[in-house]
């Protein structure tokens, strides 16, 4: 194999590949990226056995062929090469080395045979549809903060993507994530062809990798879903991932229906105030107390070890007096999801889950569990 490729193009492709590769690896081949050159393009393929990413880039292929090299090493080299350099990759099957040449730099890297590289088995997808990058970005960006890291409830370690009934009627494409303390439920219009999509739990790492595919608003992403796998593809990059083998809990009964104490507040003012008073809260519990009175919200923290803080905000509130505590981090996270309108909180009692949404928009709903203060 011998190819020449522009440094910027190569860096982008290798960067995507090496981010999939696990840092602590016990199987040597999994640390490698599979490079396959054919026609006028080259493919970079990396996997951790759960996720596979294939990135193709245009290249001048002098001699077709394939080999594998350590993904992080190749990435580091390419990253350090000067911008605009033309990089030549030459695999020498006799010595088992891959030569990387750019200008006056010359590297020789150990390779492993391409036959050893585990290529993810292709599978039948029950559902294939196209979704706009901006839509997918919103669905996952607004839900991923609530993904759990708890190992015992592994089925919460991802975003549950499924088709659901919209609160306004009809069907929607919905993403839900929760860790038991907070929950995010994000809806978007159901893309054509997605009606029969099975619900899948997309693992946290896949959500992170997907993020790199959906930066461009104009881009259309081909989505394929089966009971066991999910695939997101742009013309250059294909991301295939196993889904979490588990049942996502029935989240609908978690979303409070009867909360009727309504607080409306400017989300960024609210977030800043929470952040300020939380400065004195104890490092670990980060408890903030909300005292609600007519059109007045008092945020306070009382940490015996470090001090106390209080801040008053003008808000819209017309219901009974209420005192309720929350983890400041959770409040900040959900408040930061609000970007267009005021944040609307719906409370019940100090012990019940609280609901938050943006204005009257039902397409993004957050639930947060209070804490004793």
């Amino acid at each position, binding site marked *: 194999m011998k190819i020449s490729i522009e440094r910027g193009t190569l860096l982008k492709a290798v960067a995507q590949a090496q981010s999939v590769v696990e840092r602590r690896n016990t199987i040597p081949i999994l640390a490698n990226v599979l490079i396959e050159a054919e026609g006028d393009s080259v493919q970079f393929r990396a996997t951790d056995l759960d996720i596979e990413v294939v990135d193709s880039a245009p290249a001048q292929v002098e001699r077709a062929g394939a080999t594998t090299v350590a993904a992080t090493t190749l990435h580091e080299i390419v990253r350090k090469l000067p911008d605009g350099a033309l990089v030549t990759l030459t695999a020498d099957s006799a010595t088992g080395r891959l030569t990387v040449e750019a200008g006056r730099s010359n590297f020789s890297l150990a390779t492993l045979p391409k036959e050893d590289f585990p290529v993810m088995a292709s599978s039948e997808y029950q559902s294939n549809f196209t979704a706009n990058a901006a839509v997918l970005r919103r669905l996952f960006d607004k839900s991923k903060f609530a993904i759990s890291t*708890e*190992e*015992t*409830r592994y089925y*919460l370690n991802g975003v549950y993507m499924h088709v659901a009934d919209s609160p306004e009627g009809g069907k929607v494409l919905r993403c839900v994530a*929760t*860790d*038991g*303390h*907070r*929950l995010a439920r994000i809806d978007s219009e159901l893309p054509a062809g997605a009606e029969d999509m099975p619900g899948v739990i997309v693992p946290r790492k896949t959500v992170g990798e997907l993020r790199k595919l959906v930066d461009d608003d104009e881009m259309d992403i081909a989505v394929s879903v089966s009971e066991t796998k999910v695939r997101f593809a742009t013309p250059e990059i294909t991301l295939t991932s196993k889904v979490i083998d588990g049942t996502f*809990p029935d*989240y609908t009964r*978690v979303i409070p229906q009867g909360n009727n104490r309504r607080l409306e507040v400017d989300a960024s003012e609210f977030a800043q105030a929470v952040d300020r008073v939380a400065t004195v809260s*104890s490092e*670990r*519990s980060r*408890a903030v107390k909300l005292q609600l009175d007519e059109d007045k919200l008092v945020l306070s923290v009382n940490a015996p070890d470090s001090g106390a803080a209080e801040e008053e905000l003008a808000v819209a509130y017309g219901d009974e007096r209420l005192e309720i*505590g929350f*983890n400041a981090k959770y409040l900040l996270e959900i408040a930061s999801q609000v970007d267009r309108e005021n944040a609307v909180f719906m409370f019940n009692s100090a*012990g019940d*889950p609280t609901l938050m949404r943006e204005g009257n928009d039902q397409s993004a709903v957050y*639930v947060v*569990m*209070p*804490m*004793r*203060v």
Partner: protein
Amino acid sequence: MPALCRDCLSMLNNQRRCPDCGSPRVKVHPELFDLTIAHMDCDAFYASVEKRDNPELADKPVIIGGGRRGVVSTACYVARIRGVRSAMPMFKALALCPDAVVIKPRMSAYAEASKQIRAMMDELTPVVEPLSLDEAFMDLGGTARLHGAPPALMLARLVKRMKDELGLTGSIGLSHNKFLAKVASDLDKPRGFSVIGKTETAEFLHDRPVRLIWGIGPAGQESLEKAGIRTFADLLRWDQEALTARFGSMGYRLWHLARGQDKRRVSAHDPIKSISNETTFFEDTANPDVLDGHLWRMAEKVSGRAKARGLAGRVVTLKLKQSNHKLLTRRISLRDATQMADTIYRQARALFDQLGDHGPYRLLGCGLSDLCSEDEADKSGDLLDPGATQRSGAERATDDIRRRFGSDAIVKGRALR
């Protein structure tokens, strides 16, 4: 020479028998009223509590420990005469002392007694460092003016009060640092009162074995012996560099201890790092129901101890020993610290379910670590487990009932398996 009657607490001068009450229990020591660092160690604590609560046991050999397969946790002095020792396997203890009354530990009773003793110690000084339920260091430096009496007298009063009010006896070691105070409390058990003064320190240690040092177990002894160190006199022949080079930071400490120097302060704030409980089964078992019952009981014990101390933890640990003595441990970090038996049990149970191993096991244990105050614990519920709030309410109610009517007043069916 300063002297003290340990029965009527009269301060004397070099008398061997108390002129006031006639007691021979008089402590005479040149530095008696000058020393301030003390170690109090209860005598056969668990067994003493049992004997106190059941006077019929008074003259019988009593062993506290679990099951035939367990080990001796405490042996009373009657059993000790027959050769029974702590940490001895139960079958061996029963071979030496077949008529022994074996009692399963009642931790809540011991914790209660410990709390009462602790309250008495707190009256002597704010600087009390408990090492376990039945022993603690105290620094009485600067308290003589407050109490109008030297530390030695206050300590003698403490053990007298323990005996009179709680029916429990303890031994006192009084010296000028923690190391020597702890050594001293062990010299004259039970109901001992030993003093190691500054001037006699070197002479006292000289021929004693280094295993006297707290923290030097059989393995430590062996590595010291390899270096030709058996007694403190052997240690004195080494210079500091050589000891440090050979034994690391322990060598540095050894050099000082060899000279009777121990700079560690008695620290009331040295927090306990973990709470755990384990049980060795009567016979190895792989029965999930039996294991589940044990797991619940262990979780309840850990929770009980955490609650008694006002503590909670963020890490739950599950420990299992397979039939071949191979140890399996699993741990999980919680977002919200807990002291609830229900939460500890459920987390440990989840760890158990994920083991991918089916036993049989000979031991099961459960622990709580990364501790914090209970004020920071169990603050928020779980969205996905709405029953948790009710279960925790039920657990608090159970705790109240047990406080009023005894620990057996109410138990879960799960605990009977």
